[in-house]
């Protein structure tokens, strides 16, 4: 009896590591960067949301007209967004138009975030309940949509914009979208 109990005790680490591996595996399966968006090629979903800094004004999907735009879903509670922020700041500094969607957030916390880390956004839609975000198929932050000059969704990047993502996917896409042929 006691030998069996000793055995069980020595098996405990194995059980624990098994559980850990299982959870790691599920975590990988959940890795959202593998799911392509069904919205690509479609016009931006219709929405009308108050602006974060100017609650009296509203922002609609018409904001995407005119030139290629990034639509970046973020939140002040999102640690990843902090990591991503320096990339956004640098994109904005080089003239890329970025519209934000503040997702399931508190206005005051979001504004404090921007004061602390800088504001790369031309305008930010405030979506505290995540209602419009659902139409966009958002289920985490950060996510970034790339929209063409006619407001059509051309790309979706799930997870933070890293240097590599910017270089490999974002800049080529933006370049293509802003070439005269794409405008026509």
């Amino acid at each position, binding site marked *: 009896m006691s030998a069996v109990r000793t055995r069980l005790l020595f098996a405990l680490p194995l059980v624990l590591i098994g559980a850990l591996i299982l*959870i790691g595996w599920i975590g990988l399966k959940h890795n959202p*960067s593998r799911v392509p968006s069904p919205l690509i090629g479609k016009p931006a979903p219709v929405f009308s949301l108050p602006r974060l800094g100017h609650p009296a004004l509203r922002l609609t999907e018409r904001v995407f007209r005119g030139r290629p735009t990034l639509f970046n879903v973020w939140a002040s509670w999102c640690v990843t967004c902090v990591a991503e922020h320096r990339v956004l700041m640098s994109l904005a500094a080089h003239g890329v138009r970025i519209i934000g969607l503040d997702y399931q957030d508190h206005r005051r916390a979001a504004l404090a975030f921007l004061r602390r880390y800088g504001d790369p956004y031309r305008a930010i839609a405030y979506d505290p309940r995540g209602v419009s975000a659902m139409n966009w198929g958002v289920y985490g932050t950060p996510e970034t949509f790339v929209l063409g000059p006619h407001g059509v969704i051309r790309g979706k990047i799930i997870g933070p914009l890293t*240097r590599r993502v910017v*270089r490999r996917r974002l800049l080529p896409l933006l370049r293509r979208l802003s070439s005269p042929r794409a405008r026509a």
Partner: protein
Amino acid sequence: MIPQLGLLALILALFLSLLLCYCGLWGAHRDDPRLMGAVRPLTAGLFAFTLFAYGALTWAFVTNDFMVRYVAENSSTRLPLFYRIAAVWGAHEGSMLLWILILVVWTGAVAWFSRGLPRPFVSRVLGVLGLVTAGFLAFSLLTSNPFVLVFPVPHQGANLDPLLQDPFLAIHPPMLYMGYVGMSVAFAFAIAALLGGTMDQLWARWTRPWTIAAWMFLTAGIVLGSYWSYYVLGWGGWWFWDPVENASFMPWLVGAALIHSLAVTEKRGVFKSWTALLAITAFSLSLLGTFLVRSGVLISVHAFAMDPRRGMFVLALLAFMAGAALTIYLWRAPYLLQDRGGAFRLFSRETFLLLNNVFLVVGAATVFIGTLYPLFVEAFGLQKLSVGPPYFDHVFIPVILPLFVIIGVGPFVPWVSGRMGDLLRRLRWPLLLSAVGWTLVLVLAFAHSWPPLTAVGVLLSVWVMITALREPAAALWRRLKGRTAGWNASTIGMSIAHFGLGLAILGITVSTTLSVWRDDPMHVGKAFRMAGFTFILRGYEPARGPDWRGTAARFLILHHGRPWARTVSVKKNFGPGLGSTTGAGIVGGGLHDVFVALGNNLGGGRWSVRFRYEPMVIFVWLGGLVMALGAFVALWDRRYRWRRLPPPRSTPGGGEGP
């Protein structure tokens, strides 16, 4: 041509490592001298081919060979040669190659320094290390080949991530990897002993120096990384409880527990199964860290490019290594590791070292839970969340505080059985000095109305430092009185390391509880006051470097109204999507640091500027380095010297152990 040869060398290294595993493990199992004889030459070959592959990648960087995609993505002709050499490990693929090279260096070192150990044992150790190496070589070749070519060949590379363009890139990752990977040696020793059927006091003596060496590198690596993140603004001070930092901190805690547990196993022959489990755990945590960093399941400032296949592969590797090791453990440990004899009383060195292990391991477990909690929650389909510093501050600190009390007592309690009276006699001077120190601290605490946690931390650090000095002071006293000093490298090393811990506690406590920071919009001529300092923005001008443009802001700092220092903070922009970095102006380095960092241009000649006052922060790193120094000194203990003619079969309890 050279990159292709590098790839070929890497493939050959994979075959050699598989052969090494086969010859080492099967040869020892069958007691086949021919197979076991091949182990050392195979290790040498593995080392040579891996070094060649690594050299080939370095050469591609040095010669700006943009045909290699990894070079094109992480270097450019504008990058100085120094950074081109360090850029080899600037991203995922190359850092994996560095990881493998370091693993092979450790394997080679084991082969070299273990010539005096029994042959089947060394064969098994090298066989296990060969298996680990094979796993990582396969990982590199199948999912992250650094030698992939790109066509058409770009004229210019995309340059190294600006955040990494820092002298610390040259030393922080190699040091950290030396520590991480070094834990594989203790792991291999434990598996070899479990397979071989003898885990005795000699085994503990052989394992100790390797563990201490790995822990020394890990300590230095963590300290360097901490200092790096401190002076590069935006990485959140000197410690962030970031998943990747935690990934290095967990093996560090468990490694420290292992060092202490090995001491008991070596001296008294007990705690064997526990020691073996710690050795397996320490390396498994290193692998887990690799998984967390390379898979992107947890988001962190260090995140490498995400590729689900990589995550899968490392997870499979972790499952295989840890699973196999723990299966062997389950199979062998109950029979082999029965702690025969070695009984000890409650009041004994053994008990104190056991307590040390309990606190360290529970501390590691709290870090583990906090780090992986978002993963657990996500796995069960609940909402996304992140566990921040508040969790760690509230959970880890109370768990670890008792350790700082017993650290001052444990080393002075004799093995097996001690008496309270003897202990008090030995500790009378440290207690007296501590009482003086504590009085001073309490006076300071009341005078400056410190928060309670500050006072507790400083009191404990005084206690730890004074008791750490007790042993060297006593040895010196004996020497002065004409007797033999009776010290050895282990004791001195331990004293130094404990003293370093006391310094680190001081720095951590004071800098976290008494630091001040503020953000303020500044324009030329404006003054900002904080913590007795006045900061005046004198002016700013454009600045430029080989691959960046930016702004340099000049500040004058007054201390209590008198000019104290001038400093410059530079904000560098590296181009679209390449990000920017801020070089903070840090003044001080002694009892306090003052920190000025230029933030964002607010327009109209105004800039947001962050000011920080960090008292005693230098002791955080100084303490860490002193701990590493202690480990270094302990390595020179005569017991660990490699002996030319060992007995053919190890005898338990032999040698110089008491």
